[in-house]
């Protein structure tokens, strides 16, 4: 349950392999034998890197995240995070799901602070940190609001703050903006990048959206339909900090086209000639 003191605070130039996923596979028992959800995935992720995983529904993206967090056990292969083998739930991380999973009976700030409460961290600095994080995503003044008083985007912002409260070296996000409208989604992407450039944590981000993946990431991992395998890994060499206008640049559009071409080749996207 120990928390690695922010190794992520090091300058990003001294990057090192932080996560190593080697030969990971996962099968589930089903009515007719085993269903292979994820087949043989190898992936290394550097410290402070922003990696998106993109692929069709059922390709095992979410399974991969659960394996990474130690919340599911692989059928084969091994994962290590910061030189520690993942064998049981990893607590040195923050998780954000598509559902915000806020506790209805707690105010926004208390929903963030629960992270420290469960971990037995001192309350006072946790409350201060929660206040800072909420302010960073534009929720100043909403600390005392209950989840039902917040919009979907605001709720998801609170859940992101909760995932970051203990300054984890790794944050995993499973389609966190999937349920939000397009405008809110744009704002959330900007907020996330701001938090990321501030905290310098490693982010593994699962999404269905090609442009979201390109906009946010250092690298985009493309997965094939079930059983999920890594099809391509694409480095996104766009300047940071990224602004919305970058989406109009030729490079950005080029990355999008390349990814669309890959999904066409995989048969995930089809269009009439």
């Amino acid at each position, binding site marked *: *349950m120990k928390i690695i003191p922010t190794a992520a605070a090091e300058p990003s130039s001294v990057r090192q392999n932080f996560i190593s996923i080697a030969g990971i596979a996962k099968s589930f028992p089903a009515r007719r034998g085993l269903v292979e959800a994820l087949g043989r995935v190898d992936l290394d992720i550097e410290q402070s890197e922003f990696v998106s995983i993109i692929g069709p529904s059922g390709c095992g993206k979410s399974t991969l995240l*659960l394996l990474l*967090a130690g*919340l599911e056990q692989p059928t084969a292969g091994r994962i290590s995070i910061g030189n520690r083998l993942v064998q049981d*739930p*990893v*607590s040195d*991380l*923050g*998780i954000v*799901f598509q*559902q915000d*999973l806020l*506790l*209805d*009976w707690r105010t926004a700030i208390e929903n963030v602070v*629960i*992270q420290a*409460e*469960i*971990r037995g961290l001192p309350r006072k600095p946790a409350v201060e940190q929660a206040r800072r994080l909420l302010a960073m995503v534009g929720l100043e003044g909403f600390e005392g609001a*209950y*989840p*039902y008083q917040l919009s979907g985007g605001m709720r998801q912002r609170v859940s992101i703050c909760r995932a970051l409260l203990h300054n984890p070296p790794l944050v995993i996000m499973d389609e966190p903006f999937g349920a939000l409208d397009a405008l809110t989604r744009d704002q959330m992407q900007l907020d996330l990048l701001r938090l990321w450039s501030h905290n310098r944590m490693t982010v593994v981000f699962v999404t269905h959206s090609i442009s979201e993946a390109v906009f946010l990431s250092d690298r985009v991992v493309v997965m094939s339909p079930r059983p999920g395998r890594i099809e391509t890994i694409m480095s996104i060499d766009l300047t940071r900090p990224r602004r919305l206008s970058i989406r109009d640049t030729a490079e950005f559009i080029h990355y999008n086209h390349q990814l669309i071409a890959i999904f066409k080749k995989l048969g995930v996207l089809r269009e009439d000639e």
Partner: protein
Amino acid sequence: MSTQKIISETIIARIPRGDAFYAAATFLAVIGLWQLATQALSIPSYLLPSPLAIMNDLRTHWPIILLHTWFTAFEVLVGFAISTLVGIPLAVALTYSRTFDKSVYPLIVGSQVVPKIAVAPMLLAWFGFGMFPKIVIVVLVAFFPIVINTVVGLRSSPIEMSRLASSMGATAAQTFWKFRLPNALPNIFAGLKMATILAVIGATVAEFVGADKGVGYLIMIAGSDFNIERQFSAVLALSALAVVFYWLTDCAEKVFIPWHVSVRSNK
């Protein structure tokens, strides 16, 4: 299960406050018509007493009615408390132990086909005319909605919630007290509200079967005396009792889950 929730939350709890005036006016109009009808049509009072006659009976004989209401209230309260203290921990055990769930849950659900009131004469034979067999009946009827609703509430916690808790390094106890139990409270209260109403019914019918005190006993005695005013008075007393119990549970709900939608819509 969901029907119980709908009955207790929607029908009763969600009556908008502003509409109370209309409801009260209609009620008074019906009482007025009743009064007029009994006089104008000269209905014999042993068939249908006038509202004024019932009021009169309540006014002159309230000490005896109140006394019997106390006994029934005691049975309801003790039975309800036992149902809660046994029902909620049982539901927790059912949720956490697969084996216990498989071996006990079907029996609890299956036992609901037994009309509990039919057991009352046996309880009378075993435990006599006192309050104890009535409390047993109250527990038998009130226990079920509490257990079922608590189980539903505890199970409705999404899998991601426990994953989130694990990622924080939460112990099983922390997951239960900080995530699962609060999450189940709205369902638990739905069960408790259902149980308050059932408990009053259970106690009354148990007293019908054989008792020497309580409102059920009062009704039986009044029935054999053809004292229909008293029967109406007793019904009013029982209704008042049920309302007070329901109201107390409702207040507890407002204290414990002010954040829940069923409570908020009342504001």
